[in-house]
Structures are given as structure tokens and as C-alpha cells.
């Protein structure tokens, strides 16, 4: 079955979404991520959405819920790489992703999570 891969790097989990997700796939990612946070005792989650050219209310809600779930599980989430057109559309749609930490790229996202690899 199709799945979004989750990579572990130290106490971080990295997800790069590279396919146009249908709703079930988005829900599966949410389930997989929360399970992995507990299993790997991860402290941070970095979600790279730079390849996504559309984020609608369902995907937006999944991202914001995942961040909230991670927080409850003692992990911080940073969403990185949102395309400008996606940001404009999301806000106009009425979804500002309040409470979700964002960064412009992976490097800055890592820094937000307290990791500096450079």
C-alpha cells in the first residue's frame, strides 16, 4: 500500500511529502507519525511540504492536528518549505495554521528544533 516515508535522524523524524495526497493517505500519515513519535521517543518532527503545490482544508487540518498531537506527545513540529501561492490560498481559504511552527526551508526548520548541522 502507498505510504509517505518517515525517516529518523537522531531524535528527529523527517517527512517529505512528494505526492499529491488523497485524504486517506493524509490520515495514514497522521497515524504513522504519532505512532513513530512514541516508538522512537522523538523530540521533533520536521514536515517538508515544498513539493506540495496544493494544500486544501483537509490537508491543512491534518498538518495542524498532527502538530497538536505531537505537542501532546512531547515533540515539536515544524512545517517547512510552503510555496508562496499555497500560503496565499490557505489564508484566503480561512486556514492560517495557527499554532503550527513554520520555517522557510529545512535548514531553518532544523535550527528551530534546536539542531544545527552546519
Amino acid at each position, binding site marked *: 500500500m502507498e505510504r509517505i516515508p518517515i525517516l529518523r535522524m537522531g531524535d528527529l523524524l523527517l517527512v517529505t511529502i512528494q505526492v*499529491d495526497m488523497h485524504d486517506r493517505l493524509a490520515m495514514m500519515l497522521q497515524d504513522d507519525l504519532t505512532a513513530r513519535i512514541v516508538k522512537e521517543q522523538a523530540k521533533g518532527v520536521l514536515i517538508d511540504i515544498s513539493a506540495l503545490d496544493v494544500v486544501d482544508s483537509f490537508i491543512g487540518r491534518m498538518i495542524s492536528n498532527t502538530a497538536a498531537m505531537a505537542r501532546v506527545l512531547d515533540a515539536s513540529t515544524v512545517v517547512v518549505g510552503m510555496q508562496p*501561492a499555497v500560503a496565499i490560498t490557505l489564508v484566503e481559504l480561512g486556514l492560517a495554521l495557527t499554532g503550527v511552527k513554520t520555517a522557510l526551508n529545512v535548514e531553518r526548520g532544523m535550527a528551530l528544533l534546536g539542531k544545527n548541522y552546519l
Partner: protein
Amino acid sequence: MVNYSAESDTFASSIGKFDEFPGSDERASLPLRSDEHVVALRKMVRERATAIDLSLVDQTKLVTAASELARNTLKYGGGGEVLAVTLSDGVRQGIRLTFVDKGPGIANVEQALSDGFTTGAGLGLGLGGARRLADEFEIMSKPGEGTTVSILKWKR
């Protein structure tokens, strides 16, 4: 029949007035019966939007609005279909998407259009959000018979 139209005069008359381009490519319908169909629709709308050279922001708005309405057709309408038309009013080109289902219909369209209202588990942003993202918006719904929603985006 409940009929709500953001720009009622211009939109209602636009349906028959504008010349559609000849050729089968300009008109297409897709079924909306599964999650995968929604993904297929997003791809098709993106291709059409690129073909008439919509700006990247407008492409994104149209594809996002399409995704919201397709999900509504699927979740609340019990599935249906979408008709996509590339059209012209003689000056500019645009894309019209019409979502049709034969589901339970919407009892109170005004309420359904307000942000935060949902009868399901969603955020209640789909219908109102799609209306904001499109240039023209029309919805017709009759309880027990189904719902038709049309959006139009013009190339600026």
C-alpha cells in the same frame, strides 16, 4: 429551489452566453466517487489552468477550490461528477467547474456557506472558502434531490 449566486446576474447569464472553444478537449467530465478521483481532478484542473496561462496564485486558488468542492460532492453528496469547461467571453479566457450530486441536498444554503458551519467532522471552510477563491460562484440545492455548485475563474 434555493439559488444563491455571488454575482447573480452576470453568472446566471454567463452559463449560456459565452462561447466555448470548439473541440472535445475544452469540455470534460470526471466522476467523483473516490479519494483518487479528487486527486485526478486536481491534476486535470491544474493542466487546464496552465493551458490558459493562469497565474500561479490563481492556478493554486482554482485547484484548491476544486478540491474543496470535490470533497463535498464525495462526502455530503454521496458522490457525483464534475464538468470542466474552458471558455471565453470574447475578451478573456476562464475555466468553469460544475459539481453535481444527487445527494440529500442542503437545507439551508446561507448557513452552509458560512465559515465554521458543518454537518460533518470537517472545519466548515470548504464551501465558503471555495466561494472566496473563485471569481464567480453559484450554488443550487434542493433537499432530497441534490446539489449543483459552479465556480469560475478568469484569467486576469
